[in-house]
């Protein structure tokens, strides 16, 4: 199980990483410490992050933020059983927090334990009925459970049961008090704004509004509407593809190299036959070499080749302290395990 920053909710989640981490922190010193651990984690320095978080938890063993971070680090390290232990204990100690339930569900789903995932997500929603990420994840879990039931009904060879559902891990813990006060600072309440290069301010949803219930026509910012009447080829994923494109642009603009690279699928073909590692190193150097990057996406058009392949065409307005260019860009996106990732990138018409 990875963070899957390219996944639809994950992309949104990334934007808010740690933005509101400090709610539960009593002092700014603690906040700094937690923030440092978060940075290490985000930079992929998991071992150091784990060392730091263990040291932090040695002094504050009950601390929810620290334990939550440790769960995330262990998840990154593929220590799923340990991560499940951490999130599971968090749900016992802080049953009012939906995030640990959500992440527990993501880990269960990764193990194929969809019934447990469903129960955990239902708990997350019980604690916070308008928790959109949990609703989305639960939708995916229901679809997975449905598919398992159909396999049994139709004695299918479970060929599609092997494809794993990739759910969105939540990466920040938001204090329940804070959530209640602002009524809508959950990750999923944020709609990726095309062309925005900075982390957008959280859009607020009407408190208590059920994101799923609002689905078909009413396009609240929270609803990644699963295309009600016309599933057609895209299966209602147009908004998910758009979100993935915007998340890619946003990560680029923030010079968030891990986030940017994670937008590319494992099948991505680097240009000119370059190796993936070589290409990644080149991109990292370019992006980190700039002190300012601005990327705007406009005229985005999405075509579905099939349910799992989309072609996104748009104008890309790139400005940095070094250079600027306005060009046509094509991204071929592929859906793998529920998230859209780039498999091909072309410049020009």
């Amino acid at each position, binding site marked *: 199980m990875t963070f899957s920053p390219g996944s639809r909710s994950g992309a949104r989640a990334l934007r808010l990483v740690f933005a509101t981490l400090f709610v539960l922190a009593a002092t700014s010193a603690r906040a700094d410490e937690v923030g440092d651990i978060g940075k290490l984690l985000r930079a992929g320095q998991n071992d150091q992050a784990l060392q730091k978080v263990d040291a932090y938890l040695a002094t504050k063993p009950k601390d929810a933020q620290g334990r939550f971070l440790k769960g995330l680090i262990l998840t990154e390290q593929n220590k799923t059983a340990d991560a499940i232990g951490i999130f599971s204990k968090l749900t016992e100690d802080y049953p009012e927090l939906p995030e640990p339930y959500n992440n527990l569900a993501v880990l269960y789903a990764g193990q194929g334990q969809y019934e447990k995932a469903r129960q955990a997500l239902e708990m997350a929603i019980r604690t916070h009925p308008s928790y959109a990420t949990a609703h989305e994840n*639960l*939708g*995916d879990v*229901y*679809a997975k*459970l*449905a*598919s*398992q*039931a*159909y396999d*049994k*009904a*139709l*004695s*299918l060879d479970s060929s599609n049961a092997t494809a794993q559902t990739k759910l969105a891990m939540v990466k920040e813990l938001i204090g329940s008090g804070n959530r209640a006060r602002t009524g809508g600072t959950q990750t999923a309440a944020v709609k990726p704004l095309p062309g925005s290069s900075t982390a957008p301010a959280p859009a607020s949803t009407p408190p208590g509004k*059920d994101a*799923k*219930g609002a*689905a*078909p026509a009413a396009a609240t910012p929270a609803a990644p509407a*699963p295309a*009600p*009447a016309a*599933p057609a080829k895209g*299966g*209602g994923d147009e908004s998910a593809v758009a979100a993935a494109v915007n998340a890619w642009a946003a990560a680029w603009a923030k010079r968030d190299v891990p986030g940017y690279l994670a937008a590319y699928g494992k099948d991505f073909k680097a240009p000119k036959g370059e190796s993936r590692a070589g290409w990644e190193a080149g991109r990292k150097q370019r992006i980190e070499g700039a002190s300012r990057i601005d990327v705007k996406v406009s005229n985005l058009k999405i075509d579905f080749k099939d349910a799992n392949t989309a072609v996104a065409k748009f104008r890309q307005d790139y400005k940095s302290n070094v250079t600027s260019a306005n060009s046509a860009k094509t991204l071929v996106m592929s859906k793998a395990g529920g998230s859209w990732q780039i498999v091909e990138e072309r410049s020009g018409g």
Partner: protein
Amino acid sequence: MNKQRAHLKAGWTGAMQASGTGAVLAGLALLAGLAGLTAPVAAQAQNLVARSASYEVEDALAGIFKAIETNKLDQALEKVEALITARPNYRLAYLIKGDLLLARAFPIRGMGAMPGGPAGKISDLRDEALQRLRAYREKPQADQIPRYLLQMRPDQKHAVVVDTKKSRLYVYANDNGRPRFVADYYMTHGKNGIDKMREGDQKTPLGVYYVTSHLPKAKLADIYGAGAFPINYPNDWDKRQGRGGHGIWLHGVPADTFARAPLASDGCVALSNADFEMMGKNIDPGRTPVIISDQIEWLSLDNWNTERQALLAAVEKWRRDWESRDSDAYLSHYARNFSGDGMSLKQWSERKRQINAGKEWIKVQIGNMDMFRYPGREEMVVITFQQDYQSSNLSNAMKKRLYWIKEGGSWKIVDEGAA
């Protein structure tokens, strides 16, 4: 979630509507009619007898459909999960479970909403649901008798009557000569329907048959499930019609499924294994009649009595006229297209006149008789009995079978031979 509930409801009802033809109206009526009146009546009737697996499953399905109709989707899911716990190989229940779960993630369009699911298998399950719910709703009334069962022999404790149109098998007990309902079961018949004509046509024969033997599970392949009761297809009448093929059995279903689609066998009649075992307790190989029909006509006790008295009178008249050695009177009981012992009516008449002329007396006794209306378009009845024949120069005892048809408003023999 209201929109999604609406979607599910509209989708399901719509699917019943979209499947075309008469089944649709039945589907709608069935969904609408499940609530309220019908269920308690059926349950009441069923309380008097042992509960079949079919009944338990159909009772559960009715509850699930009613919950869906009334938008209680959580309750419907609980009920379907309980059904799966009780019947872990019940494919239809899994299909409904899939729909109920999928409806939480996406609006769905009909029963069996699996995206890209195999259409044939899905419509098989939908057909099964319709057949079961229809049967659940339309239980036979306690005072009704299938028209086929005109008379059972004293040693025939039970009779089996199949209604292929309803995918239903009924067991009746012989209650001092009067058929009494025991149980009914969902059943599967031939892939290509009814009216078997030749080997390999995957059709189920229509006719009056008898169970000939019992094959235990241990001697059979898994596809036959809990066991098998072969029947005597093709019978005399089938052979006379030139019907071929063989190996028509009543049997169970494979271990990996609770039930099969309404039309799925190669011509046999298949019951769920639990139902097969329950039915098997009432089967007596060599004796139990199995009447396979395309549709059962139900008679009130009065009409049933009237009909059988008319036939018993015709048989008695034939017996007396035979004893009288009045050849014209005797031969008046035979139909124009009669055949018997390989003889046409003309040959038969000549022979009987010749025999009668050489006799001083004839005595015919009839006993141990069964009498069944024969399924099919023609009005026909088959009567089998023990015949003791004595005369001035010859005596013999035999088991005889007569086929009677309506000709010019009266019952006439169209076929006569040893049974």
